[in-house]
């Protein structure tokens, strides 16, 4: 029963394909790909609609207000109203803008975000697009995002757009390094670039209770934090939304976009966030695997989406809690702290591997990380003294 429920989507696909069983091979291949594409789009666009209203609800809850509560029960139909509003808005293109590139930028951005969603295993036998170097594919395609943002900024022919694009590229380039190097220890330990193998390597339980997820090793926990923070920067969200800082440069590279093109940017940002969180779940949180042996009767995709929503909640939580960071502070953290820590994770993973992957390896790799962390804290300490903060009105 539980296996049937687990494989229900795979069975559905096979059933759909059995309708054209007699067709030539390439037709079956194309139809099979189309089904996968449709499934990914349907699942994630629904999730996008859901998250966009949930985010506003959660933000409102954290700021002591109601949030959207007029359209439908609990304001749940808000995304539909928003979508209609965005569709019927006038699409304004500046007279001096580069029309073609101005149009292409949001399309490329959304396409890239959707492509990166394709290589993540969503459940047992549920990877939409299996490729030999899936992790590399994710980053290779993802690196095109910078070009799309630049196209948007340049084609708008507006100084705010250009400044926003410059800022976006500077921060995305800087944080791409720790993002990718934080993945290296996992690839090294598993010995494969295929996401399915990485999930398979995290199966099983130590002593029958503790899952063998990489986040539960010292190097894995450090790499996970580095990956999560870098992913947050890559998706240009608060507290790292310097590229679109409203108080300084209107909306950065999106200043000259309106109507559905703006909605596409918005969607691409969310899809990118889903992709990075999905990869974090796959790499460090055991992918679609259950946290306890007794809970394995719950279908695998449910676990994946539960973990994904947990990460998305942290994204929203951080947005509600933290103010925007300063550009120079962000760059300093990336180059002086996160990059050395990411390299340390690689070394700690090697130590863990050669000390036998057991408790001894666990302790040794913890020692490596603690030593480097304390050394960095001492070296990077500016010794600046801050005066005690005084409040005039808040007390």
């Amino acid at each position, binding site marked *: 029963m539980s296996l049937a429920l687990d494989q229900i989507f795979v069975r559905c696909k096979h059933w759909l394909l059995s309708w054209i069983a007699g067709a030539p091979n*390439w037709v079956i291949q194309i139809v099979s790909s189309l089904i996968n594409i449709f499934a990914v789009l349907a699942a994630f666009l629904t999730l996008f609609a859901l998250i966009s209203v949930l985010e506003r609800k959660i933000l409102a809850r954290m700021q002591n207000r109601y949030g959207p509560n007029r359209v439908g029960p609990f304001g749940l139909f808000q995304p539909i109203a928003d979508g209609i509003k965005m569709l019927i808005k006038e699409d304004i293109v500046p007279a001096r803008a*580069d029309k073609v*590139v101005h149009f292409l930028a949001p399309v490329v951005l959304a396409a890239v975000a959707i492509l990166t969603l394709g290589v993540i295993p969503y459940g047992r036998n549920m990877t939409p697009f299996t*490729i*030999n*170097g899936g992790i*590399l*594919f994710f*980053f*290779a*395609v993802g*690196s*095109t995002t*910078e*070009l799309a943002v*630049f*196209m948007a900024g*340049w084609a708008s022919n507006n100084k705010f757009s250009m400044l926003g694009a410059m800022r976006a*590229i500077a921060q995305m*380039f800087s944080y791409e390094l720790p993002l990718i190097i934080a993945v290296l220890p996992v690839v090294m330990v598993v*010995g494969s*670039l295929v996401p399915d193998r990485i999930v398979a390597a995290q199966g099983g339980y130590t002593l029958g209770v503790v899952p063998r997820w990489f986040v539960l090793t010292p190097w894995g926990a450090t790499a996970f934090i580095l990956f999560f923070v870098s992913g947050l920067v890559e998706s240009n969200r608060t507290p790292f939304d310097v590229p679109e800082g409203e108080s300084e440069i209107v909306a950065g590279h999106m200043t000259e976009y309106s109507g559905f093109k703006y909605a596409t940017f918005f969607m691409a940002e969310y899809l990118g966030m889903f992709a990075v969180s999905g990869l974090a779940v796959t790499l460090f949180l055991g992918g679609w695997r259950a946290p306890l042996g007794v809970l394995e009767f719950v279908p695998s995709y449910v676990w994946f989406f539960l973990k994904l929503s947990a990460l998305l909640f942290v994204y929203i939580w951080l947005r509600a809690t933290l103010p925007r960071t300063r550009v120079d502070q962000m760059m300093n953290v990336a180059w002086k702290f996160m990059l050395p820590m990411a390299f340390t994770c690689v070394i700690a993973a090697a130590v863990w591997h050669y000390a036998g992957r057991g408790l001894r390896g666990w302790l040794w790799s913890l020692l490596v990380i603690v030593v480097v962390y304390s050394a960095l804290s001492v070296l990077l300490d500016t010794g600046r003294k801050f005066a005690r903060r005084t409040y005039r009105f808040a007390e």
Partner: protein
Amino acid sequence: MNSMAFIIVSVFTLAAALAAATLSNLMHAALCLVLALLGLASFFFLLGAEFVGLVLVFIYVGAVAVLIVFTILLTRRDSKEHRGFNWSGVFIALAVFGCLTWAILKTQSLTIVPPHIRALAVKQIGQVLMAGYVWPLQCVGVLLTAALIGALVLVLEEKR
């Protein structure tokens, strides 16, 4: 199927490359160059060398293209005025083309039926790099580190 894909990708790549060479708006030319590079990467995919294709996209589209675009943006402001036809460029292009054609035609193995080669796995590339070519790899690493430090020294503010 495969030859059909080859023709489509070839036409696409050549058209993009031609556009990159002839368009007067430098930014458009740079974006067309990106398209041509994507076409090149898809050749590697057709050959079954996924790793090389992905690395090509990663490095050329992700990094080099952004560098080119930035360079155009930060250096020139004369994109509107008409420049004369560049005959030295044509000469160099023809010379490179002639050299390559000569080298390809001289290659002996063109006439032999190619043996069926298994696509190289990522693991094999890693083993070759780490075993046979470890010294060249280290030299490239030192060179890149030197370039990085050099760039830092160039932009370092002078202490007063």
